[in-house]
């Protein structure tokens, strides 16, 4: 058996934690906990970025870790919590699929994600390439969460978690994206959440609820 260096082992642990958190989010119906899980996911992501920065000596990864910490661990969860309090949405309704069913679908998705990631893993020259499969899983699991949830807030957390997955994929496949792109993406995510905040108030003002049931009339008219 070969011994992996400590840094590598820690990174793999981070990757495993990310996947675990994705599953936890998938099964969680309390919106507040969901946001907390998202913050923890951000923290693990920041830790992984930091570890990677330390191991590879790539300076821009330090910046990117700091950005993750500020944006995804502190600011966005704070904003979402504030929104939850002001709007009074604490629970998601029963998801379209029972939790146990969702978990089973999630398992299938992970297997699929790893097979999808194989050609990329073979090409990538980073020593974190084994985690690419996990990144793809996180993206697809977040997608599943968006499909199965009814409340706008849960869908947004799913959307943000998807972005985390894509970000982790960029990190493990190529040690992150060029700085200018990373900054741009962070800016877009930030603006997206701000726009959503405004948007939620508009929805609530109209319907007195954030249940997406109300938003299905256009489909029927089609």
């Amino acid at each position: 058996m070969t011994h992996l260096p400590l840094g590598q082992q820690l990174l793999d642990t981070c990757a495993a934690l990310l996947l675990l958190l994705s599953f936890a989010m998938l099964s969680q119906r309390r919106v507040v906990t969901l946001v907390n899980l998202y913050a923890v996911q951000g923290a693990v992501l920041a830790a992984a970025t930091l570890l990677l920065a330390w191991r590879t000596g790539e300076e821009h990864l330090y910046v990117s870790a700091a950005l993750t910490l500020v944006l995804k661990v502190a600011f966005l969860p704070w904003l979402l919590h504030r929104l939850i309090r002001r709007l009074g949405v604490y629970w998601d309704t029963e998801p379209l699929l029972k939790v146990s069913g969702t978990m089973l679908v999630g398992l299938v998705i992970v297997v699929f994600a790893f097979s999808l990631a194989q050609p990329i893993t073979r090409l990538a020259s980073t020593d974190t390439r084994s985690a690419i499969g996990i990144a793809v899983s996180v993206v697809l699991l977040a997608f599943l969460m968006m499909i199965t949830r009814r409340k706008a807030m849960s869908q947004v957390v799913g959307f943000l978690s998807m972005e985390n997955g894509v970000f982790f994929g960029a990190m493990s496949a190529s040690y992150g994206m060029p700085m200018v792109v990373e900054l741009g993406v962070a800016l877009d995510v930030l603006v997206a959440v701000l726009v959503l905040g405004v948007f939620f108030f508009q929805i609530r003002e109209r319907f007195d609820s954030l249940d997406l049931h109300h938003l299905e009339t256009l489909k029927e008219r089609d």
Partner: protein
Amino acid sequence: MELALLLGFPVLGAALLGLTGAHRRAPEINAALSLATFLASCALTVQVIRHGNLLLGDEQFFIDPFNVFLVALTAFVGLTTALFSRPYMRVELEHGRLTPGRLRLYHSMYQLFMFTMLLALTTNNMGLMWVAMEGATLSTVLLVTLYRTPESLEAGWKYFILCGVGIAQALFGTILLYVAAEKALGAQGVTALLWTHLDAVKTQLEPTVLALAFVFLLIGYGTKVGLVPLHSWLPDAHAEGPTPISAVLSGLLLNVALYAVVRSKVLVEGSLHSRLPSVLLMGFGLVSVVLASLLLWRQRDIKRLFAYSSIEHMGIATFAFGMGGPIANFAALLHMTVHSLTKSSIFFTAGHASQKAGTQVMEHIRGLITLSPTVGWGLMLGSLAILGVPPFGVFTSEFLILTTAMREQPWATPILLAALAVAFAGIFSKVQPMVFGETNGRRLPHAPALLPVFAHLAIVLMLGLYIPPYLAHWYRAAAHLIGGG
């Protein structure tokens, strides 16, 4: 310099119009800034014609015939839409559908939207292009919900979530591109996403990863193009937002998204040596044409009707890019131009018609020709143009696409022809009573100012009869760049 002005005016405009508040002259400022942007785009075009391709700003910006023609088109339609929106939005304000505060948001976001689209077109960095495309969605989400009706909120939410998820796929595709590029270009982190660099080494990029990247990019940007089955946000967003926004979404955003798809296709095709990108584009294009032309029949809302027609035409252009080769690419570029001009002019008249009738339901819009001949003729001519009646430019591009299809992909020709016929009947049978039907309404005292409509239609007519040599040369150069076939 020209580029700095081109991107600078909209940013300046967004800040200015956002900060000055609900200024009485805001619509005029909006139009003036759009004019400035258009002049800058003309200057940039002259530059490219004189000196050939330009690499600017530390290689972060790249201008070639392919994108400069879209830049000019975008700035032009941006200008005419700003001119149209000046009186139109004022009436909306008087009707009490809007508040001054929302009008301020509208003007500011309009400029920001122009900026993101021009950035997406001119940037050389595939990552920045992604950022700009996402920015284009974000700047228009709050415009789609501008009226705050339940329907518009639903449309906005769908637009945000579907395009958000789509664009996340495109980001993943961009990352895969980056991984493959780093391998081929060596450890050149900063330059590995520059399109020109990627284009130079495209034959050495790992094919499997690029194929995967293309699938993700196509799904991501294809959502924005409105390709079936990723189209469901498009009719809602077009129908529920204010009319000037429908015009720019349909006339410009779809083009820019298709531009992103084609740029990706050029790279992937160079690496792949297989027909995969072509086949995918042709498949998505054909499905979009067929489904949109069938769904047209079920529409009752005038803006939804023409939104489906946009899906159909984007499908035609996508199919043509899929076939590839100089003639099909030429036709697709021409089709993008004439569709963008015609469709925005149709939305202008449809907006006026529904503003006068007080509804967007087609059954209640009747006898436009008696109410206001300008609006009536505008809608009729615009519809005929978009349906591909000669001598309008849409006929030329569709004719070129069909004849190429007959030679290259004979199986697709009957499907395309049938879909076009179905769409023709569908749209014509709905537009005809709206224009010539019986009405007991009285003729309007003033003819509405529809200069933008007739300016657009005149250009489309000209492109159908005669394409000036420098323009033809320009299209050919762009078509050659895209290659394929």
